């Protein structure tokens, strides 16, 4: 589907008189609208029908709540190779893995064809899609999306023809549009659909009209459909119901792209991130320890810095007072000869470590697997050299 049509462009080229310009551009406002919905409802599984070149998906992949992203479009060919890099995990995704898994799948297919792989979604978006459907397809559309896919939530956007008189051109906004509805037409259609498939619907939009033409409504009208739940008023993430699962698998869509992102749910990445964080933390504690030791040696007057909390607090480490108190209570780091030790019980108090593992025994098990050489014999502390630069140097 060719959406994000030339409306923005058109608008910026019309004479200065009565110029209607949207800032940010309308297509962006639509995408940000969806992002807001995602922020608000935190869906796990999101599908975009008529995803075009997957721009919306590229924006949604950043949301930490989203674990499954699907795009469906008719025109999805080898051209995708150019955009696929943006949907694939990048170096940054490997170095700083997400908390939760994320998989992205793109299908070639039509929004009026059933495919069982789109069952059980929390949110399905159809941004500027329906106006491209001919009457036959439009008739099939509700049954497929609402009846069959039946997601927890559907967001449908379409041009509002009430707004069109404000534009110089009197035709449709895009030559491929089969129709452009006014507010009444859209709301009528949407309400019927909602009623038929037990959804509630509310109407909103993006692209507010100028003050002198308030009556025309938003330039893009949007319907937000929420599936009615047995317990009214609560919006629950959709789950594939038993009856759905037992339905025969229908695979009308063709997979054109898949990507799976590294995450902390995958043990390999958890191990790597944990070991790195622990060693970073231990190194920072060591530096502070050495610094305090040196100050004591030079017998400068004791200051508040030399107290235990001085050892805990460091620049760049954000701790609440409660966290500081917690760490202060735990076993202290110590040195024996040229080795420096930080007890695991102390490490677990640091939020960056605690975020990854909940308890000391898990921490111990993982570290024993990831950096066995850095654990002391009893597996109670992480050990490093007190002075890592104390090694022989070659002469020049």
């Amino acid at each position, binding site marked *: 589907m060719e959406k994000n049509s030339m409306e923005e*462009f058109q608008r910026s080229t019309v004479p200065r008189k009565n110029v209607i310009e949207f800032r940010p551009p309308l297509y962006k406002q639509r995408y940000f609208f969806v992002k807001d919905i995602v922020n608000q409802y935190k869906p796990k599984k999101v599908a975009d029908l008529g995803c075009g070149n997957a721009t919306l998906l590229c924006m949604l992949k950043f949301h930490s709540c989203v674990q499954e992203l699907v795009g469906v479009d008719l025109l999805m060919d080898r051209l995708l190779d*150019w955009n696929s890099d943006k949907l694939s995990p*990048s170096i940054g995704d490997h170095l700083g893995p997400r908390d939760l898994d994320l998989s992205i799948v793109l299908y070639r297919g039509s929004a009026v064809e059933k495919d069982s792989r789109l069952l059980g979604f929390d949110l399905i978006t159809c941004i500027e899609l329906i106006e491209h459907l001919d009457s036959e397809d439009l008739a099939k559309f509700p049954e497929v999306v609402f009846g069959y896919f039946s997601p927890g939530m559907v967001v449908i956007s379409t041009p509002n023809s009430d707004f069109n008189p404000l534009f110089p051109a009197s035709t449709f906004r895009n030559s491929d549009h089969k129709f452009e509805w006014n507010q009444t037409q859209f709301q009528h259609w949407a309400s019927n659909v909602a009623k038929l498939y037990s959804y509630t619907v509310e109407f909103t939009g993006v692209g507010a009209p100028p003050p002198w033409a308030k009556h025309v409504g938003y330039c893009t009208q949007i319907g937000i459909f929420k599936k009615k739940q047995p317990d009214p008023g609560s919006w629950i993430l959709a789950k594939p119901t038993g009856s759905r699962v037992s339905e025969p698998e229908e695979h009308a869509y063709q997979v054109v792209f898949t990507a799976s992102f590294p995450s902390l749910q995958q043990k390999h990445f958890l191990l790597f991130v944990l070991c790195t964080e622990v060693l970073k933390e231990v190194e920072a504690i060591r530096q502070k320890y050495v610094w305090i030791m040196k100050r004591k040696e030079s017998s400068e007057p004791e200051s508040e810095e030399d107290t235990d909390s001085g050892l805990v607090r460091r620049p760049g480490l954000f701790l609440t007072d409660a966290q500081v108190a917690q760490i202060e209570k735990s076993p202290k780091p110590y040195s024996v000869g040229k080795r420096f030790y930080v007890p695991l019980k102390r490490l677990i108090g640091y939020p960056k470590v605690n975020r990854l593992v909940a308890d000391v025994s898990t921490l111990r098990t993982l570290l024993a697997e990831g950096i066995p050489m850095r654990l002391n014999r009893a597996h109670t502390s992480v050990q490093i050299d007190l002075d890592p630069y104390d090694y022989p140097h*070659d002469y020049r």
Partner: protein
Amino acid sequence: MSGRARVKARGRARSPSPADAPSVPSSSLPTSVDISASEASSTGDFAGTSRISQTRKYGVSPGDARCPFIQRSGKSRRDFTDLDVCTREKLAHVRDCKTGSSGVPVKLVTNLFNLDLPQDWQLYQYHVTYVPDLESRRLRIALLYNHRELSNKAKAFDGVILFLTQKLEEKVTELSSETHRGGTVKMTITLTRELPASSSVCIQVFNIIFKKIFKKLAMYQIGRNFYKPSEPVEIPQHKLSLWPGFAISVSQFESRLLFTADVSYKILRNETVLEFMTDLRQETTMSCFTQTCEKRLLGLIVLTRYNNKTYRIDDIDWSVKPTHTFQKQDGTEITYVDYYKQQYDITLSDLNQPVLVSLLKTKRNDNTEPRVAHLIPELCFLTGLTCQATSDFRLMKAVAEETRLSPLGRQQRLARLADDIQRNKDARFELETWGLHFGCQVSLTGRVLPSEKILMQDHVCQPASAADWSKDMRNCKILSAQSLNKWLILCSNRAEYVTENFLHCLRRVGSSMGFNVDYPKIIKAQEDPAAFFSAVQKHVNPDVQLVMCILPSNQKNYYDTIKNYLNSFCPVPSQCVLTRTLNKQGMMMSVATKIAMQMACKLGGELWAVEIPLKSLMVVGIDACKDEVSKGMVVVGFVASINPGITRWFSRCILQRTATDVADCLKVFMTGALNKWYKHNHGLPARIIVYRNGVGDGQLKTLIEYEVPQLLSSVTEASANTSSKLSVIVVRKKCTLRFCMEMSRSLQNPPLGTVVDSEATRPDWYDFYLISQAACRGTVNPTYYNVIYDDNGLKPDHMQRLTFKLCHLYYNWPGLISIPAPCQYAHKLTFLVAQSIHKEPSLELANSLFYL
């Protein structure tokens, strides 16, 4: 609505975020409206999006477009131009045969693979036009790909130029296709060229095919290499991740098309700029924190984790905090915190961090003010290893342990890769449709050159191992040495005892090698760089033969200030030694021996020689590198032998302001060297052979057009009648080719002196590979030699053997080295100047190897 407008609208839509990092106009510019900037980021199999519009704009007819597919990275493009330079055809004596004959044949396994093509294989290049004209590349390609006429043919298409392996029946083919909107588009496909497999365009297409295949193998492309993120090697204690992978290319070798794959590792740093800053904050006081921070960070390349782009840190703005607002390109104001939350669902943890400033490169060469991007340190990963990291012995050891593969380990990786390519269904399909067959690994025959004898003053030794003959020359006298009578030792009070001890050893080993070392004047100084420097200033005068400084630490400013002063202001040879080195128990004699030899060289002495059959030969080494401090400066070093025995050297170095590593001053240097030679030998050298090191990709043509003429003109001007004959050889230490020798069912590095001058070489060049250094661990890297100019007309065999001989003559190491000694001297000289002196060394030192 014109098609152009439509594309423009879509173009905007394709990149919803105008700049993925909030970019703010630089202060003097009120607003910036560069929307398309982020579009260039789209990566593709073919040219970037911009390419099409360019082709159109200039109305290039595809028939004469030399390289229709322009690679995204400029590097590969430059490579092609290197290969386009045909030097061999001008060298009559090697036109028919460039292989040598001496030495023992040895069978070698390479990292090259056969790519088999049917005999009559050709690539057909077509030009495609559309009626009505379509601006959308996406649509153009979609329509063509989906047309049934072409659907099951192997093809590559960038929107304008189409490549097929099967010829269409007609020279001009008309196809029509329906868009999904119901319109009809007519496509006219016109044959413009038929290309043989060896043409450079075909090779580009092959490289594109392999790029595709590697993506199919779940490899991640960084630069020109492909890495496997699924199998990382992690070194958490150094915050590093290593991704194993390959540097790959397809190119035309001596007689065949071959695929090269060399094992490569990508080093990724798991450290954000914020973490780096907080570590630094802990190390330094607040007063010098910002300064140190800037010193360490400016110029580094960072990777933003959210959009996978790299930026150079040009500045740090300490006054801007993440809670401050900036103006988005649509004019609205937003705080950095909100922007990242909204755009990327990222919550910033440190609200007091400053922002990094990066100047954005503008594609267009118009005069618009450069735009800057503000980056949040917390979201920027450091990339590459800083010089601080590379000097961290433990870190480098950890990296080396993981990345240094033995010949066998390397072979196993290659075998697995070949297996993957052959087994992967998609990869195989891709190859098959193009008619390509991924063949077996190439083996070839090299030759091991005879070993060299080392000539000492009264002794000729045949070293047990050419890699290190220090034991063989124990108690042998060096060729010549000036007696050291008037010299100074500068040391700290604490180091007095070790210094005395060391001096004793030095005098002993000196006398046994024939180098008389008298007792020096010992000066004691405070342990402080300034105190050392002022002691040097106070006590050194031009009568002093040599100054030895026993440095308390390897802090750079001790070394740099002393070297700077003694190399340019008060030219006296100097020798710096670390106290720590002298404290090594049981090593004193060998340390003293090495230092005694260096000192002898710095006084103009000669250590050893090899037999040089050519009676009047001058060899020259040239190297160039960028200055460490002033980035726009290039340091060019020139070292020439000034006696027939090739034991004495004339060394010059200059700093020039240019963007490239091409030398400007060679005429002056060469004339100077010829004058020196004339003074010492009462005539001019019959032959001059120049080894040029430090040449980057794609500079070959410039070298031939710019450097060779400089050398030639000074040679011809030097004498009215018969001038010296000149040869110029480009030396490359880095090449992706590897050779291994099969040995009792395992693989080993080939013996020292192995030459390869067939099959793995290039048809248009007079080139060869020589393995002249030993690698005790890992796989040896052969050095590649390309003779780009040759008046001497030496037989290839003699050229190879002479090159091998010259690898024996580096006086800082009693053994073979990887490149000819003059090159290594030039390298050492440029390194010293680029790292420490940043100034032209005094001419008074030019006659000795003062920089060893």
